[in-house]
């Protein structure tokens, strides 16, 4: 077998036993790696109705066929589990050396189940698995955890770990490696629930590919394309460039989606950050784009370099009414240190601020949580990570916190299926509104790029119609293929004809004959498999819906002032989406579709 290893490693941390299992070629052909393979294994390993934070919920790390091939942006891995935040699928991606090392173990996936009696870390060296005590790592941040483990091992290991938030099972805790995070859906809480502080990998195998020379030619071409104008934004400003543009286009969520523009956007713009705070650029292993930007924070104890992306900037800035870049950098640093998803952290904080200001959450006011008050936001992040005071409630995420708080606070808990919304206001991006509503993992900007249609002028972004269903479905399938090969989305526009080129690349790696059409239907198969997992976990049509605020309050500022999103408009788009997917009118997948896709 080329490109794949044809086996997985299952580690049960309750018993300490580990077993390698064969992975059939037919399954790898059908689902590829990454999110596709991870979703497939989730169906296998997760008992129906499993409690996400129980020992039986599997935590799956999946590699992919392009990992280790040297093709730019492909050093990635997927983390798939049942989300403690949504109760549905959580499929997160992270990248860099940990991804390469996972593949060097000679496995396509690592499945962790069980619960260790005390805090441990899993050390895998080649074929050997060792469960090691980790009490001495308790309370450490991911960066210190990585360096401590590397110092005590005799081989140069790569480490993924959780911070305090994961240890405390904060429902939006991340798994972190090399400063990056598998961020969304609470995968870190699942790892924490297993009493696993970290996973350290030390591999010694190289996966063979079928046609190395042909792959090198394709890799070389992609490398060159990755350095052209199509990736300018990522290479020269970073994703933080979105903030000023989104503000101009009236789609920058501000003060818990009460506005779609922020009056102090200039201070937080990517351009201003670059001018005033830029420190250096960084990239993942095997990546030529190198989109990461580190910005200097100047604290009283000398300052530090902090990684900042648009989503973090929006969520800890305008969403909470914060206009001070220094405060956003500090909040981002805290989230990284504790291992918290910054989008869900910002979304939950913004909900809490509003609840406090409306008199429903006095503890939030006591903590100093107010729109625009940086100190309160920083204090609340500490409290969430440690589950202290009101932090214990907020550690549950906005959906659960609102249900617990009651009154009408669920109306402005800005989540879909429990996952907090990213930084795109759906009222001025109607295709995105649909993408967010129907995404299997909840409000997500990565499992489809539905916003692309809105930003292209192909559609009227202020008005939704049933035709968006087809657009969103195509975008989801495209993302499913990218996430299963795995190729970074920032490379996506560099392909002249993605499916044809990616199929050619996959064929050269695996030695299998793969066509563009096959790859396209593979995307649909993977996406449908995610949906089927959710249906198995009691998904209902009302889960494909948006928060009440978006459906009852019109935009009050910016170019979209006066524009709203009516329930009928959303219903029509959702109906069009189910139709495009050839699902039934309630969004369930009919047996003939399952059969047609070969699931």
């Amino acid at each position, binding site marked *: 077998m080329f490109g794949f290893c044809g086996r997985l490693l299952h580690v049960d941390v309750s018993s300490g036993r580990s077993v390698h299992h064969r992975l059939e070629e037919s399954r790898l052909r059908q689902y590829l790696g990454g999110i596709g393979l991870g979703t497939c294994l989730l169906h296998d390993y997760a008992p129906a109705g499993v409690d996400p934070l129980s020992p039986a919920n599997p935590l799956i790390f999946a590699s992919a066929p392009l990992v280790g091939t040297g093709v730019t942006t492909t050093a990635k891995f997927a983390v798939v589990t049942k989300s403690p935040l949504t109760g549905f699928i959580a499929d997160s991606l992270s990248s860099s050396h940990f991804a390469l090392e996972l593949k060097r173990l000679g496995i396509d996936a690592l499945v962790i189940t069980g619960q260790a009696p005390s805090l441990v870390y899993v050390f895998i060296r080649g074929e050997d698995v060792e469960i090691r005590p980790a009490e001495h790592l308790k309370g450490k941040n991911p960066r210190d955890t990585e360096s401590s483990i590397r110092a005590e091992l005799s081989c140069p290991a790569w480490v993924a770990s959780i911070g305090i938030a994961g240890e405390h099972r904060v429902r939006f805790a991340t798994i972190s490696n090399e400063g990056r995070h598998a961020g969304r859906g609470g995968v870190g809480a699942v790892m924490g629930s297993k009493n696993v502080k970290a996973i350290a990998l030390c591999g010694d195998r190289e996966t063979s590919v079928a046609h190395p020379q042909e792959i090198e030619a394709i890799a070389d071409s992609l490398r060159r394309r990755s350095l052209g104008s199509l990736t300018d934004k990522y290479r020269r400003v970073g994703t933080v460039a979105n903030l000023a*543009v989104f503000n101009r286009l009236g789609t920058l969520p501000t003060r818990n989606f009460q506005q779609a523009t922020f009056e102090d956007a200039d201070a937080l713009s990517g351009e201003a950050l670059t001018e005033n705070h830029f420190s250096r650029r960084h990239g993942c292993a095997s990546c030529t784009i190198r989109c990461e930007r580190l910005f200097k924070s100047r604290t009283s104890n000398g300052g530090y370099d902090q990684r900042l992306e648009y989503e973090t900037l929006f969520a800890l800035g305008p969403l909470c009414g914060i206009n001070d870049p220094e405060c956003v950098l500090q909040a981002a640093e805290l989230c990284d240190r504790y291992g918290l998803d910054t989008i869900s952290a910002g979304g939950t904080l913004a909900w809490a601020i509003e609840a406090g200001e409306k008199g429903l959450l006095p503890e939030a006011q006591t903590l100093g949580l107010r729109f625009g008050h940086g100190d309160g936001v920083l204090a609340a992040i500490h409290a969430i990570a440690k589950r202290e005071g009101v932090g214990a409630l907020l550690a549950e995420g906005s959906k659960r916190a609102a249900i617990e708080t009651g009154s009408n606070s669920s109306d402005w808990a800005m989540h879909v299926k429990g996952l907090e919304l990213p930084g795109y206001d759906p009222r001025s991006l109607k295709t995105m509104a649909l993408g967010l509503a129907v995404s299997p993992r909840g409000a997500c900007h990565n499992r489809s790029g539905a916003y*692309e249609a809105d930003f292209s002028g192909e559609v009227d972004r202020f008005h939704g119609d049933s035709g968006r269903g087809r657009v969103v479905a195509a975008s989801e399938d495209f993302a499913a293929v990218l996430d299963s090969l795995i190729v970074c*989305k920032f490379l996506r526009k560099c392909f002249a004809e993605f499916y044809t080129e990616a199929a050619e690349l996959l064929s050269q790696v695996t030695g299998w004959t793969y066509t563009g059409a096959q790859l396209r239907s593979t995307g649909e198969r993977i996406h449908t498999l995610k949906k089927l997992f959710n249906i198995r976990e009691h998904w209902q049509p009302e889960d494909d819906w948006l928060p009440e605020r978006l459906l009852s309050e019109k935009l009050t500022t910016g170019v979209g002032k006066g524009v709203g999103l009516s329930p009928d408009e959303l219903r029509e788009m959702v109906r069009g989406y189910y139709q495009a997917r050839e699902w039934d009118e309630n969004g369930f997948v009919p047996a003939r579709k399952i059969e047609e896709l070969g699931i």
Partner: protein
Amino acid sequence: MRPMEEPNDVTAATAIVLAGGRSSRMGTPKALLLFDGEPLIVHLVAALRRLFADIVVVAAPGQDLPSMPVTLVRDEVAYQGPVGGIYYGLRASGGEVSFVTACDSAFLSSRLISHLLSQIPDYDVVAPHWEGRFQPLHSVYRRSVLPLLEGQLARGELRPVYLFEKVRTRRIDEDEIRRFDPEGLSFFNMNSPEDYREALKRWSDVHGSNGPGPTAAIHCTVELFGVARMLAQTREVSLALPPEATYSQVFAMLAEELPVLVGQVISTDRNSLVDGYACNVNGLHFVRSAAARVNPGDNIVILSADAGG
């Protein structure tokens, strides 16, 4: 002919206006025919100024012309026909590449000119072919053809097409021309008073009753975001555009104002944005075609085409 050393900077191209013809059938110098009260050549130079920083006007010895911000050269030997004019113009030009036009071309298309310029990197001459004939007085030439033109003058070969047979000539056929200038008005020349009357009528149709003078200019603001803002070191630029200007003209004028954007944000032919960049009007609608018209007072937003975060 030996190919030119690459690359050549077409962004620094020169415009050459040949004004020294006899105008015998017209009875009056064509360059001075009045449109909206101004000599045609004044309009022509103003239009070319939007695309070219360097303009050369080739006039006959002793010919009267209005004062203009151009390099004025005189034919050393009068009335040698177009080959002489092209030769003297190229010799005086500062750039490696020049666009040559006759002084009676009242309806130049900046989009077509930009397209011709975009084709020159692999050729020595780019010449439109319209209604069965090459249009040498609406063509782009490399300076390297000078020795060949000198030879033609010495031999009395006064037709430019002789040159086209000797060098790498890119022929632009009608279908291709129509993409930029549907009616081929770029090749409308005036040889008689009847032609002048026809031109005045068309001028009125194209420019409206007020003509294209400064008072009729429309104003818009270009807002720069991301890479464009950082390269230009400015957030916005105000532009005065001719009536019914298109986005191609916006990009061309912006390129003139902010040359640093050319090749990075604005394409080297200056009539579009490079891949990866997009244009939005007033924060509302995305521009899908560079041929779309600009409305007075528009705020034109230049941003990355990729909204991924």
